[in-house]
C-alpha cells in the first residue's frame, strides 16, 4: 500500500480571518513502515493526521491512498485517539468488535477476531471489563486492538500515550514497537515527544509551526532490539540532542509562542 501526501496546504477561517495552518506538506508512507511526525503544539501535526484520515479536507494539494484520492474517513485508515478512545458503555471485547460489527462481518468472524486481537494486545483476560475498570494504558491497548480489528491499511496514532503516566508510557512504547515488529502493520505516529518518535519510527519528520511545515526528515535506522537500553545509548542520545536543538531553534520564545499556538490549535480543531 502507498499513501502519498502531495503539496497539501490547509487554511481555517474565511477571508481576513483566514489562518494558514499547513503549508506545502509532502510525505509518503509505504507498506510496513513506521513513520513519525514530531513538532510542538501548533505545528499542525494533528491536522496532517486528520487530513489523511479524511476528517478534514485540504485547501490545496492532494492525498492519495493506493492512487485513489482520499475523500473522507474510512476503515482503510484506522485511528487511535489520545482521549475518549473507547466507548464507555461497551466492554473491552465489544469495543474491539465495534468496527467489525459496523462493517457487517458475520458473528463467528467477529468473535474469533475479537479474541485474537485482545490476545495480541495482551488483554484476553479483560474481555468483559468496562473501560472505567481498565487503566489508561490498558484502555489504549484496547483502542489499538479495536483499530487493528477493523483491518486498516495504515494505523494513524494521534499522540496515543500523551495522557498516560511516564512509566506506563514507556511500557506502551515498547508494546507498540513490538506489535509493529510482529505484525508488519503500517503506522503513522503523531507526537510532541522526540524520544518517543525516535524509539519507534524509522522515518521521522520534524515540523515547524506557523505555518505548519516539514523542515527536516531523518532516517532513524537504529538497533531497536532492546528499547530500554537504546534510550541510554550514546548514538541515540546524540541524535536526539541534535534534533532537539533543531526543534528548539524553531521556537524562539517557547512559552509565549506555545501559549498562542495552543490557543490557535484549539480554535482550529473545534472548527472541524
Amino acid at each position, binding site marked *: 500500500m502507498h499513501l502519498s501526501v502531495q503539496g497539501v496546504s490547509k487554511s481555517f477561517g474565511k477571508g481576513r480571518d483566514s489562518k494558514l495552518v499547513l503549508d506545502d506538506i509532502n510525505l509518503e508512507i509505504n507498506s510496513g513502515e513506521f513513520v513519525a511526525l514530531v513538532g510542538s503544539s501548533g505545528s499542525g501535526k494533528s491536522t496532517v493526521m486528520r487530513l489523511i*484520515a479524511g476528517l478534514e479536507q485540504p485547501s490545496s494539494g492532494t492525498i492519495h491512498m493506493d492512487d485513489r484520492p482520499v475523500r473522507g474517513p474510512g*476503515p482503510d485508515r484506522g*485511528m487511535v485517539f489520545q*482521549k*475518549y478512545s473507547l*466507548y464507555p*458503555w461497551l466492554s473491552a471485547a465489544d469495543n474491539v468488535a*465495534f468496527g467489525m460489527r*459496523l462493517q457487517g462481518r458475520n458473528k463467528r468472524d467477529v468473535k474469533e477476531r475479537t479474541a485474537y486481537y485482545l490476545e495480541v494486545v495482551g488483554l484476553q483476560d479483560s474481555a468483559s471489563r*468496562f473501560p472505567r475498570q481498565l487503566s489508561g494504558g490498558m484502555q489504549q491497548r484496547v483502542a489499538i486492538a479495536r483499530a487493528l480489528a477493523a483491518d486498516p491499511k495504515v494505523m494513524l496514532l494521534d499522540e496515543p500515550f500523551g495522557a498516560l503516566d511516564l512509566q506506563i508510557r514507556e511500557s506502551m512504547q515498547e508494546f507498540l514497537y513490538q506489535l509493529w515488529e510482529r505484525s508488519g502493520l503500517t503506522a503513522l505516529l503523531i507526537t510532541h515527544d522526540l524520544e518517543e518518535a525516535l524509539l519507534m519510527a524509522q522515518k521521522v519528520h520534524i515540523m515547524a509551526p506557523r505555518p505548519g511545515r516539514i523542515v527536516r526528515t531523518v532516517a532513524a535506522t537504529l538497533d531497536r532490539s532492546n528499547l530500554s537500553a537504546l534510550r541510554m545509548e550514546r548514538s541515540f542520545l546524540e541524535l536526539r540532542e541534535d534534533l532537539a536543538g533543531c526543534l528548539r531553534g524553531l521556537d524562539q520564545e517557547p512559552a509565549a509562542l506555545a501559549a498562542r499556538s495552543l490557543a490557535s490549535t484549539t480554535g482550529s480543531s473545534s472548527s472541524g
Partner: protein
Amino acid sequence: MSLRRQLDQPWLLGLVGIFSLLLLWQLVAASRVVDPLFLPSPAEVLAAGAEQAQEGILVNDAVASIGRVLGGYALSILVSLPLGIAMGSNRLVCQLLEPLLGLIRYMPAPAFIPLLIIYFGLGELPKVLLIFIGTLFFNTLMIMDAVKFVPRELLESALTMGGRGLQIITKVVAPFIAPQVLDAYRINMAAAWNLVIVAELVAANEGLGKRISLAQRFLRTDEIFVGLIVIGLIGLLIDLGFRLLMRRTCRWAI
C-alpha cells in the same frame, strides 16, 4: 451495626426527616393555633384518605391523572427524541428550530388551556396535549444539548472504522446520551405532573387535581391534603422508577 453506621443509611435519615415533619404538623394542629378548618391533623387527613380509598375514589382519581400524564409524556418522549437528536447533530436543523423552541418554551403552558379547549374540546385530548406542550420543549432542548456534547473523538472513531450517518446516531450518539436523556425525562416528568393538576381544574370529572379543587368548594381541607400527599407520593415513585431504569440500562455512567 453500631448506631453511627445505622444513622448513615440514607433512607433512614430521610425517614427521620419525614417523621419529624409529621410530628411538627400534629403539634401545630393539636395546638389549634390555626383554625382546624384550615389545618386538619395528620390523623384526620389519614382518615379522609382511607375513606376516599374505600369508596374507590382515590384509585379512580390516581388512575385518571396518571393516565393523562403517561399519554402526554409518552407523546413528548416520542417527539423530543428524534427532534433533539436531529437538532443536535445537524447545524441547519438546529439553526432553524432553536430560536422557535426557545421562544415557545417561555410561554407558560397553562396559558394554552383556553386555546386547547377551543380547538380540541373538553375531553381528555386538551389535557394530554397540555402535558405534551409543557414538556416537549424542555425535553428536546436538553437532548439537543446532550448530543452537541458528545465527544468528537467518539464520533470520529466510528467514522474511521467505516461508520456512516445513521449508524453513528444509533451506535454512538444514542448509547452515549442515554443516561442524560433518561435524566432529562426524569426531571421533566415533575413538570408533567404539575401540569396534569392544572389541566384538571377545567372540565374534569375525575383526577387528583380535580378532587383538590372540588374539596376546596366544600371546605374539605383534609381532602386537599390527601390529594397533595398522594400527588407527591406518586411523583416520588415515578422518580424512583426512572432512577431504577437508569441504573439498569446505563450502568456504565453511574
